[in-house]
């Protein structure tokens, strides 16, 4: 509270000076994007590529927007603050696209068709969005099913192993023996045991998720400070209360580590399963694009995959931050 008040006080006189000073970094970024636009529009393509003009127009619009943003308007508002913080990345991105465009479409320094120009990848999004969207949908469906089953089973068995000595006695050796096996090793077996490739893949994703969630939930439950149980017991807590209101909340930070590890593992298994068995999804799309030497499609699919995976990790972080808001010093994603 007091620190904010202090900041306002000190920045108040400086505000007038800052208000009309251009954001130089954003100005530079705008210049680079305009140069990219000029490069795409003015220099003829060295080979046949579609959408070069559209690409130039979009880059030009971004450049103009950045230039306007850096000079016009209030320099103290939240939008300007965001622009200021993003400018270095916009400079880097613009420069990267400039070099890429030059090295591919304009000069063919990089071998075709392995390195398509940026507009070719944009073209995929425009022309093949239906198939891409369908792939994303199928992957998401498969991943969600497998991950949720794996996380739920892993969580429940982790709690059971951590809580009950009898369950631990039987589960521990099995977990130690089979758990470290990579889920992908089960792939051939899964595809002939399960009736459909979809159920086989769901099983594999669940397996990849379940193991880390089980182990970390278990270690979380086992590591709960015994004094918490003493406190709750003297206050009249039943066993059920001890599990639900003491053990599980105390173990939750560990559970989330397991959920993160499981999510990473499930991505890997999902892609492999789709490449080898399932006839849909992003993994299948990658494989298909490579088969047709449609490298632009492959890059596009990789980009979509990166956005989707990063989005899911972000979502999991949000859920964790919400559930574990009581913790001090959480890692910010």
């Amino acid at each position, binding site marked *: 509270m007091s620190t904010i008040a202090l900041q306002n006080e000190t920045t108040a006189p400086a505000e007038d000076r800052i208000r009309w000073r251009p954001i130089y970094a954003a100005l530079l970024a705008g210049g680079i994007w305009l140069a990219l636009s000029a490069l795409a529009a003015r220099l003829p393509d060295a080979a046949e590529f579609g959408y070069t003009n559209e690409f130039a127009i979009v880059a030009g619009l971004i450049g103009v927007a950045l230039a306007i943003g850096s000079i016009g308007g209030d320099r103290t508002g939240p939008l300007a603050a965001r622009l200021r913080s993003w400018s270095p990345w916009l400079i880097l991105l613009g420069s990267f696209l400039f070099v890429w465009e030059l090295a591919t479409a304009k000069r063919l320094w990089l071998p075709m068709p392995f390195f398509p120009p940026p507009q070719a990848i944009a073209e995929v999004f425009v022309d093949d969005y239906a198939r891409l969207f369908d792939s994303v949908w199928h992957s998401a469906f498969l991943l969600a099913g497998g991950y949720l089953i794996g996380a739920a089973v892993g969580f429940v068995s982790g709690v059971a192993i951590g809580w009950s000595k009898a369950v631990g006695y039987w589960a521990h050796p099995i977990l130690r023996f089979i758990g470290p096996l990579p889920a992908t090793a089960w792939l051939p077996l899964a595809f002939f045991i399960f009736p459909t490739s979809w159920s086989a893949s769901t099983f594999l994703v669940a397996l990849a998720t379940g193991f880390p969630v089980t182990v970390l939930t278990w270690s979380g439950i086992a590591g709960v*400070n015994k*004094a*918490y149980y*003493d*406190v*709750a*017991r*003297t*206050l*009249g*807590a*039943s066993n059920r*209360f001890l599990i639900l*209101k*003491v053990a599980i*909340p*105390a173990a*939750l930070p560990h559970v989330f580590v397991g959920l993160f590890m499981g999510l990473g593992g499930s991505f890997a298994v999902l892609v492999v399963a789709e490449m080898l068995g399932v006839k849909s999804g992003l993994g299948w799309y990658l494989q298909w694009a490579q088969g047709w030497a449609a490298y632009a499609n492959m890059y596009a699919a990789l980009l979509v995959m990166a956005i989707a995976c990063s989005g899911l990790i972000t979502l999991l972080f949000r859920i964790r931050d919400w559930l*574990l808001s*009581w*913790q*001090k010093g959480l890692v910010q994603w």
Partner: protein
Amino acid sequence: MVSVVATHGSASRAEAPPLGGAASPALDLSGVSQAFALDGRPLPVLEDVSLSAAPGEFVALLGPSGCGKSTLLRLVAGLDLPVAGDVLVRGKAVTGPDPSRILVFQDPTLFPWRTVFDNVALGLEAQGRLRRDRGQVDEALALVGLGEFAGAYPHQLSGGMAQRVSLARALVNDPDLLLLDEPLGKLDSLTRIAMQAELVKLWQESGFTALLVTHDVEEALILAQRVIVFSDRPARIQAEIRNDLPYPRHRDHPRIVELRREVLTLLGLGES
């Protein structure tokens, strides 16, 4: 600040405790022994301990660190069972924990994922009467002066505040017997002195029987009506000292100074 207590009208109770006068004492230990296994060999920690406390009495158990006093509290709380002897509370044998006997630990052991309010509400929630007795939580928080911190998380509290919350968590259950295991042991000396006065006040207002484990001679003499001095492990009762000084007590009172010397001599520290 403690002089306020006198106006609460319970000061008379503190002067004349009905020691042994009641039909069944609040607490009665007879011939209690306890041992743990250490590297396969039994390690005796309590040996043939017998003591009793009258309802509403404040008894301090004083002894060197690690002599088994805390073990005794755990037995009374019902968290452990003795290898020999009987632990009776109000004439009934202790077989397990019960919210009428609450242990306050040296560490506040607040649940970090719960707010101050939810920590204090823990007992009521566990006993399934939170919905009905919600108001008691606010009362308990007000009693320890932390009403404004109901929504705070434990990591936002100072050591003294956290220990107050843990006292409120115990008091909200309106216990007959409050077992205090060096509850002020980890506080700085200033907070400690303030909390000693608060503890006396809470005891006088609430009417519970208090059993305090401490290794601070002065704390025992300031707080308790009876100080039971333990020997080193295995703990045996060495002496029992009555202190009938009225509350609030001052640590420079000649009687306190005299008793302190007496106790220190019993503990083999008479020279220092």
